């Protein structure tokens, strides 16, 4: 039996509190998958019977599939663009003496704290002033603003986590800036790039407010769900769709964090 210092002794009260807190946080979300398997039209206990027919009905709707396709296309491009921009920004912030580095970083991370509705309205005003038609492109533009902070926050530690001498060594061995980037920088930060792609994809895929303001006639998945909520008969199908989105998002974020962390540990463990 290992005796522990009182500093490391488990605190029973805190443990109970933590479990209670997690339950309160996730229980409401868990109602969505639960009732998506319920046979009844309305959300109420006790559940009368179990069924998969809402999922079946979901797959019959071509509008759902079209919205899904739109969402994947938007989220895919947003993930690529914001990750590429994030790589450049993170490299510049970590590697070069940029004047006003602090304020620049704050400005880049600003969308994390500014309500999306403000950004949404502002962008809508600008887009209509420029007479750009609302479409999936304008949604994607809005999403890039929201996703860029996530990309940079994921990539910054990757650049901080390895010695700048790696890049100097590659230059010393005869490679110019372009080749140094592809042969050394990219492979080393690759876990961060993958994590950033997954994370920004998820953020864009699930985003509603920007899509609501900036969307045209083509719907993304969250917009489609919003539309269906007004039809009571469609509600169980929405729950089934919500369950799938939830599952998909969990998997992506989990993967992103796992990949990002594994790479980080591998770099730090050396020496």
């Amino acid at each position: 039996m290992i005796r522990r210092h009182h500093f490391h002794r488990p605190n029973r009260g805190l443990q109970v509190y933590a479990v209670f807190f997690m339950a309160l946080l996730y229980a409401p979300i868990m109602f969505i998958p639960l009732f998506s398997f319920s046979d009844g039209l309305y959300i109420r206990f006790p559940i009368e019977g179990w069924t998969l027919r809402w999922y079946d009905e979901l797959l019959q709707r071509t509008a759902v599939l079209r919205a899904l396709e739109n969402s994947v296309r938007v989220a895919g491009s947003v993930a690529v663009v914001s990750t590429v921009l994030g790589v450049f920004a993170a490299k510049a912030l970590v590697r070069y003496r940029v004047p006003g580095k602090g304020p620049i970083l704050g400005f880049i991370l600003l969308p994390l704290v500014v309500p999306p509705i403000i950004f949404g309205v502002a962008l809508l005003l600008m887009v209509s002033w420029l007479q750009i038609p609302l479409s999936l492109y304008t949604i994607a533009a809005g999403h890039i603003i929201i996703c860029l902070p996530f990309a940079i926050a994921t990539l910054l530690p990757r650049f901080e986590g390895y010695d700048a001498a790696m890049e100097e060594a590659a230059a010393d061995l005869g490679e110019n800036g372009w080749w140094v980037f592809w042969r050394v920088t990219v492979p080393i930060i690759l876990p961060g790039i993958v994590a950033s792609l997954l994370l920004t994809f998820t953020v864009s895929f699930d985003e509603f407010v920007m899509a609501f303001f900036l969307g045209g006639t083509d719907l993304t998945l969250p917009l489609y769900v919003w539309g269906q909520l007004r039809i009571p008969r469609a509600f169980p199908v929405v729950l089934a769709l919500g369950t799938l989105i939830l599952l998909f998002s969990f998997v992506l974020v989990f993967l992103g964090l796992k990949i990002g962390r594994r790479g980080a540990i591998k770099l730090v463990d050396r020496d």
Partner: protein
Amino acid sequence: MNSAATMISIRNVTKRFGVFAAVQDACFDIRAGEFFSLLGASGSGKTTLLRILAGFEAATEGEVHIDGAPMDAVPPHQRPVNMVFQNYAIFPHLNVRDNIGFGLRKLKLDKAERARRIDEMLELIKLPGFGDRASDQLSGGQRQRVALARALILRPKVLLLDEPLGALDKQLREQMQTELRALQRSVGITFVLVTHDQEEAMALSDRIAVMADGRVLQIDTPAGLYERPKTRRVASFVGSMNFLPGDLAVRACGQAAWQHGKADFIAIRPERITLHTDHPADQAGAGQPLPGRLTDRVYLGERVQYQVQLDGCAQHLAVSTPNTAPVVADPGTPVWLTWPAEAMIPLQDD
């Protein structure tokens, strides 16, 4: 090899970061095939000077020529120099083979030739069969060898080494010193080493430039620096050294033996001083032994280091005797010190 041939010519090089001058007016040549060291404490400018040679920093003033060609406008990837970095900067995503062969891409060798050259290097650094190791499965000493091979495979005119042994423990460091020296002789490439460790610089170098506060204080062979330091700073940086007012030191060895005239300071190495527990018999022409009191004794294994306070003044002298000498005395014992005239190095104030 023509020993007079100049490989690197550093002409009035100054590097300023803002108002801070990291290197001030460095001006010297490094010969082809030479093992040359830049020795100094941290902040002395030695690393900055090395990075100027590699092309990672641009000199604010002055110019550098390597093998006769001006380097000012040449970027790092086009210079005929390669570098071993302080923490080796082994690429973590590549195995040992690909680390060593990294610089070969531009040579456009066929597969067999590339493999042959990498094998040759693995042989040279005594790591044959390590080629497929992942870079994080290497010990500190092995990483250092891989870094060496990676730089040497390109057959540079100059190899730059930035504290290459600093990350290794003492025993390994001494072993690597021997190997590094042998390697330099066998490849015949000019080595420029940066170090803060004077023993390392002495063990490895043909010549050493001692630097402090961005300035080159003295350039000489290891023996020259140790036996004929020009200034007090160089004397105290290379090995340990006692400093005495000139007249006091001359008294101890006898005026007759002293040929140098007046000096501000006399420097004497601790191992050149003889420690007596009895008043030594006066010899003809010798000076008066200086009486003192033993204040401390440190047992170092091969040597024993004593501190002696001279009677009548606050001056402490360090005396170092080989462990084969009879262990003389405990602190508090009265002792007498003598030294030969040739052990005294006259210094002017600097």
